[in-house]
């Protein structure tokens, strides 16, 4: 029998059809997930532009002075509070060294309650992630400038978020810095107070991270695709950003998490946008 004859007689397994159908289904699912994320990202990008063009002057008119009095609603380190609002203006003022007051206003008057917000705390690197909802008039540049003025703050950067009425930014703190957040009402305010504690000995952290990319649509799509995971964006040494899932003390835990993420997403091993990487807790991935 010639090679050609042997080739022609290679038996075709019964499973071939099923295997090919399954592969098409997996690809179709992935295509749909990406396209819906893309649509949202494009909408968000348009809203960000609108936000920058339209709303900045309104903020300066809204609050010329940030009231520094008020009744304490709660003191927290992470979590959330406030209530649903729409179109609230946001401004900041440094009230004492390493204490920043965030004020909220509408129609030139301070609001009585803080708009809905969350604060997440992450360890490697030491950072706080603020998200405000219902705040279409957000003078982010002023907020960033004031935060950068605090000596215990290492870096501040904005995060893309697929919600045109929300604002998210990251405050990276120096090693050993602790914080408290106090929520006030009548008038509404959030006070971030930073304190230098004992510097923690750096340790190795394992996590899932994406490729480096600019802060934009691609990262927003990752958040959309892996929204149920503990995903955050971290600035890296090059000035670009990565999406990070989890912070573990062992490589095995991180690898198990990667398998879980891929399984949940219905994709094969090595097909997600993430890989396992280790970095020091006081450094950027």
């Amino acid at each position: 029998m010639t090679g050609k004859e042997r080739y022609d007689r290679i038996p075709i397994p019964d499973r071939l059809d099923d295997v090919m159908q399954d592969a098409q289904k997996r690809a179709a699912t992935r295509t749909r997930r990406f396209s819906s994320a893309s649509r949202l990202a494009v909408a968000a990008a348009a809203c960000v532009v609108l936000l920058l063009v339209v709303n900045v002057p309104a903020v300066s008119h809204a609050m010329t002075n940030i009231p520094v009095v008020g009744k304490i609603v709660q003191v927290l380190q992470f979590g959330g509070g406030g209530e649903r609002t729409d179109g609230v203006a946001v401004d900041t003022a440094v009230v004492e060294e390493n204490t920043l007051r965030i004020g909220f206003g509408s129609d030139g008057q301070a609001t009585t309650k803080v708009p809905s917000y969350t604060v997440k705390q992450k360890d490697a690197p030491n950072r706080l992630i603020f998200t405000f909802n219902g705040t279409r008039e957000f003078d982010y540049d002023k907020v960033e400038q004031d935060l950068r003025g605090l000596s215990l703050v290492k870096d501040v950067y904005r995060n893309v978020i697929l919600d045109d009425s929300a604002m998210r930014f990251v405050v990276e703190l120096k090693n050993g810095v602790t914080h408290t957040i106090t929520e006030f009402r009548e008038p509404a305010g959030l006070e971030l107070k930073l304190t230098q504690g004992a510097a923690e000995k750096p340790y190795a952290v394992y996590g899932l991270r994406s490729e480096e990319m600019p802060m934009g649509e691609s990262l927003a799509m990752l958040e959309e695709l892996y929204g149920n995971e503990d995903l955050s964006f971290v600035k890296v040494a090059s000035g670009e950003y990565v999406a990070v899932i989890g912070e573990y003390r062992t490589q095995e835990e991180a690898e198990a998490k990667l398998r879980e993420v891929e399984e949940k997403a219905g994709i094969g091993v090595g097909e997600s946008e993430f890989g396992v990487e280790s970095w020091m807790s006081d450094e950027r991935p």
Partner: protein
Amino acid sequence: MIFIRPKFKGRPSKEEQFSEQLTGIREKLYRLAYCYVKNEQEALDIVSEATYKGFLAYGKAQSVTYFDTWMSRIVINAAIDHIRRSKRSVSIEDYGKELVASEPSTSTEEKLDLYEALDRLVPDEKTYIILKFFTDMSFREMAEVLDISENTVKSKFYRILNKLKAQLIEGEVDER
């Protein structure tokens, strides 16, 4: 008189087009994959990977003129990747057994058992033998599948063939 709008069947979606065209060549793609690994499960893995990648790429492509050629290229790349990942790729020098000469004949294919000879080739080299002898492609068609010039295909093909012939001769000499 009431005019009833005829119910036209819409143009098939890209997903449907892909699926339909794939059905016609599925056996060919499987055999192509099988030649690289000679193992049913691994060949199915390769075809699955190629189908997945092909589906994603087809959705983004403006048009795919020669679907058969295009999918063959994806299967070949998937097979080579698969072997590299499995670290099964072994250089030709590493093979212990010699080529077996079949009954004396003038034809290259009859002289060499090419199906067996595949086992002695690195993945890239296998491609040329499979496409030329098993799928009966012309050099021009091979050039399209591999996305290289026809002259490059010819020179690589003859180099691989000469290598196999040299091994065959060495085998015959050793037998004496």
